[in-house]
């Protein structure tokens, strides 16, 4: 039986990383991000990366670690607001950024994984993000043409995974992970729990194993919270 489980992040990344490559990363804000793999990529020292990720982490956490270590050349993202090091490098011209509307980014990653070369969306029509793009009317409304995104490597975080690479995500930590898992030829998933064959209900698997080539156990699960909002218990 093919067993996709690797001993750890270093083993799973062996022979994979090279300068200038494109890496797609799952997560929204700091929720559902592959902390273990990001740390290993930071430690590897690989440089000139293009990152496809909705956000850029924060200073000192998430993809912010790769930014601080000057490993990123370009980002394709929808929102990078929480990161001062990002701002510094961007203003210094050390970092390129391509902004996408969030839904367009999600759909471009899905398209990349699903063999859709491009699509028309109303999103962004009439805005500066449509500049230089084909615009076509459907039902009298202008739509913007957007192309698929693909990556050399995809890194995702899931809750549970099995030796076949089947993944289940947990709550809103699902976010961008399912599309990211499909958009690269090589996808590495870090999971909080590795379970045995047959332990995942076939009706509940979010990402089928066909999309996942390597699985590791997530050893970094800090899950830092950006906005810790609470309510008071009513006595």
């Amino acid at each position, binding site marked *: 039986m093919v067993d996709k489980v690797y001993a750890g992040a270093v083993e799973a990344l062996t022979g994979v990383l090279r300068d200038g490559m494109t890496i797609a990363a799952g997560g*929204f*804000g*700091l*929720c*559902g991000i592959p902390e273990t793999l990001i740390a290993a990529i930071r430690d590897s020292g690989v440089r000139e990366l293009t990152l496809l990720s*909705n956000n850029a982490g924060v200073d000192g956490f998430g993809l912010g670690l790769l930014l601080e270590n000057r490993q990123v050349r370009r980002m394709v*993202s*929808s*929102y*990078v*607001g929480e990161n001062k090091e990002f*701002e510094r490098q*961007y*203003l210094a011209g050390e970092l390129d*950024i391509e*902004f*996408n*509307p*969030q*839904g*367009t980014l*999600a*759909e471009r*990653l*899905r398209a990349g994984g699903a063999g859709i070369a491009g699509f028309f*969306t*109303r*999103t*962004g*029509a*009439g*805005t*500066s*993000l449509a500049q230089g793009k084909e615009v076509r009317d459907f039902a009298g409304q202008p739509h913007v043409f957007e192309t698929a995104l693909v990556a050399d490597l995809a890194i995702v975080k899931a809750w549970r995974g099995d030796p076949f690479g089947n993944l289940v*995500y*947990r*709550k*809103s*930590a*699902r*976010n*961008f*992970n*399912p*599309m990211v898992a499909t958009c690269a030829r090589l996808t590495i998933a870090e999971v909080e729990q590795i379970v045995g064959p047959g332990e995942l209900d076939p009706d509940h698997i*979010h990402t089928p194993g066909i999309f996942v080539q390597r699985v590791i156990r997530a050893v970094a699960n800090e*899950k*830092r*919270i*950006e*906005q*810790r*909002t*609470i*309510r*008071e*218990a009513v006595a």
Partner: protein
Amino acid sequence: MAWTRHQMASRAARELADGFYVNLGIGIPTLVSNHIPPGLDVTLQSENGMLGLGPFPLETAVDPDIINAGKQTITELDRTSYVSSADSFGMIRGGHIDLAILGAMEVAENGDLANWMVPGRMVKGPGGAMDLVAGVRRIVVLMEHVARDGSAKFRRRCTLPLTGAGVVDVVITDLAVFERPERGARFRLLECAPDVTPAMVRERTEADYEEDVMA
């Protein structure tokens, strides 16, 4: 007397109807969830991939895997479901969300909306705002009537880069409420805050709008 933020949120909540699926933007729009009338069944959606948002958690129940699009910790309800962000924007872009309530820097009299960037300042990115205004059936803007420098935010034309063209249906400020019957139509002044006169609103507004209803 101008409305407070909570009064604005309360007014915005009157745009909700039973059975609505609603997306609330970051800032004042988030406050609207505190003003949903009892008995009104409203389901909140968050574009990261959650449908059926509950209130903030008790201190003991904080779960980092349950956040809204503002990255705030929240809770589940008995109706909650999670989807991928691609499927979540399928709901938004596909016209399945009845109403979105969003903040704004500027709104133009033709319904153009600017709320994502200021040239010269660091750009944080559009996030989901462009998708929301492009896909949600009805767009309500909640904003201060005038900017800190005293300039009108409801304008002839937006001076800032657009989030969407011709997308706004209702504008609720601390001074007044404007509405239009359909996209492409003119806005009309619908209500003023207590002790605020139509003349005072006119003075603080650059946009052209109808006000015969108030006369």
